[in-house]
């Protein structure tokens, strides 16, 4: 088994490398923009604007209540048809993943902020601190400790969900498996290589997150 894997890697390693770059690209964009968009959404939802609150509630309800794959199909067929400019397949899929991720990130951040004791806000405001300072200096530094571990889990989900792009033959680690498998007709070893690559990526990521968390908890 090990020899087969080594032989496949020697011959088709470059396909997997391409796959790794593809997954890293998709995951990085999803993590970055999904987190940004999700953060903005959570702030909007915690604001006083009733319409924004309701709109985001609906947004999260739809995106968390339907499969990511269905959402990708939707973006894949819908966006090129109605947008006035050209979009690559990969861009459509990445946009779907970003939108999907933002809904989960919104929930994580909102829950993290709301988990900070109300007394903290009351203490800060009673000292005469502005709402903005209360948020940036008192609530967020405490909320981040609730948010980070959950966000780390979301990042891992994002890496794995990038595999959905393989259905649309976008290059990433699962597509690499399919490519090599169809060239060699060898299934299990080629699959195992992809699996090990995923494991390596998620292990590195969760290790990194643990390190960050430990640094943050030093003062507790």
């Amino acid at each position: 088994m090990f020899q087969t894997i080594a032989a496949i890697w020697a011959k088709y390693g470059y396909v997997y490398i391409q796959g790794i770059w593809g997954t890293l690209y998709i995951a990085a964009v999803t993590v970055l923009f999904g987190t940004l968009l999700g953060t903005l959404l959570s702030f909007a939802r915690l604001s006083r604007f009733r319409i924004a609150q309701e709109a985001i509630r609906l947004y999260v309800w739809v995106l968390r209540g339907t499969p990511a794959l269905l959402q990708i199909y939707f973006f894949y067929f819908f966006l090129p048809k109605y947008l006035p400019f050209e979009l690559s397949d990969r861009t459509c899929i990445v946009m779907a993943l970003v939108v999907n991720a933002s809904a989960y990130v919104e929930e994580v951040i909102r829950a993290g902020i709301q988990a900070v004791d109300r007394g903290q806000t009351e203490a800060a405001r009673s000292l005469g601190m502005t709402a903005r300072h209360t948020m940036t200096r008192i609530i967020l530094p405490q909320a981040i400790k609730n948010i980070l571990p959950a966000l780390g889990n979301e990042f891992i989900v994002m890496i794995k969900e990038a595999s959905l792009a393989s259905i649309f033959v976008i290059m990433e680690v699962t597509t690499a498996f399919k490519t090599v498998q169809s060239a060699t007709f060898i299934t299990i070893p080629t699959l195992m290589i992809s699996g090990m690559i995923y494991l390596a990526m998620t292990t590195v990521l969760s290790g990194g997150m643990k390190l960050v968390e430990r640094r943050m908890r030093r003062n507790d």
Partner: protein
Amino acid sequence: MIDRTKKLIVVEDLHKSFGGLQVLRGVSQTICEGEVVSIIGASGSGKSTFLRCLNLLETPDSGRIIFDGQEITGKKVKIDAFRQQIGMVFQHFNVFPHLKVIDNITLAPVLEKHIDKEQARQTAEDLLRRVGLYDKRDEYPTRLSGGQKQRLAIVRALAMEPKVILFDEPTSALDPEMVKEVLDVIGELARSGMTILIVTHEMGFAKRVSDRVLFIDEGLIAEEGTPEELFEHTKTERCRDFLNKVLF
């Protein structure tokens, strides 16, 4: 002593409901500069809500609050500026766990009053010495006992140099052996001439340090007077009932 002509807080006909429950049903009161006023009453009588209305942590449904000659209950009032002058100490301390003891104290003065960092630190260290927490200045609050946390919360409020401090049951969450150290600090503050409103169940303390005591019952000030008048010559049936039930 107390200057009866200097009205610091004037409350007129304050009403507040939560849902269908009327918590305050028309409270009026004048607090003068330098006065120490204890607020007593049963749980749910509205005494904490009354206190929390004074710095608008709760928004009254109707009625007016005039602080130092200016109405704070009107629309378009910049409440942050007033809150800087109204300190508050909570039952559950609410110290900032992510900040060192010293930074708990200096944060608001530096951010909101634009006081020089070094000067704020000096003031904070002086305050910490006053309440015996100077040694703890670089610790995080998780390392403090309940009594120490509450003393920190008191000096954090003092650092803003407020004109009045509101205490909302400051010893109710403390272990019994820590009540005294906190009451001593409040007592010292009272003697120093600070205007104080304190919601408390510590009747002995209220009797000792107050200039005036308010008994709140079902959302109204049912009886008020000097500690002697209220505790020794109780006029109303409700207040007598209440006092009979509590330990001194």
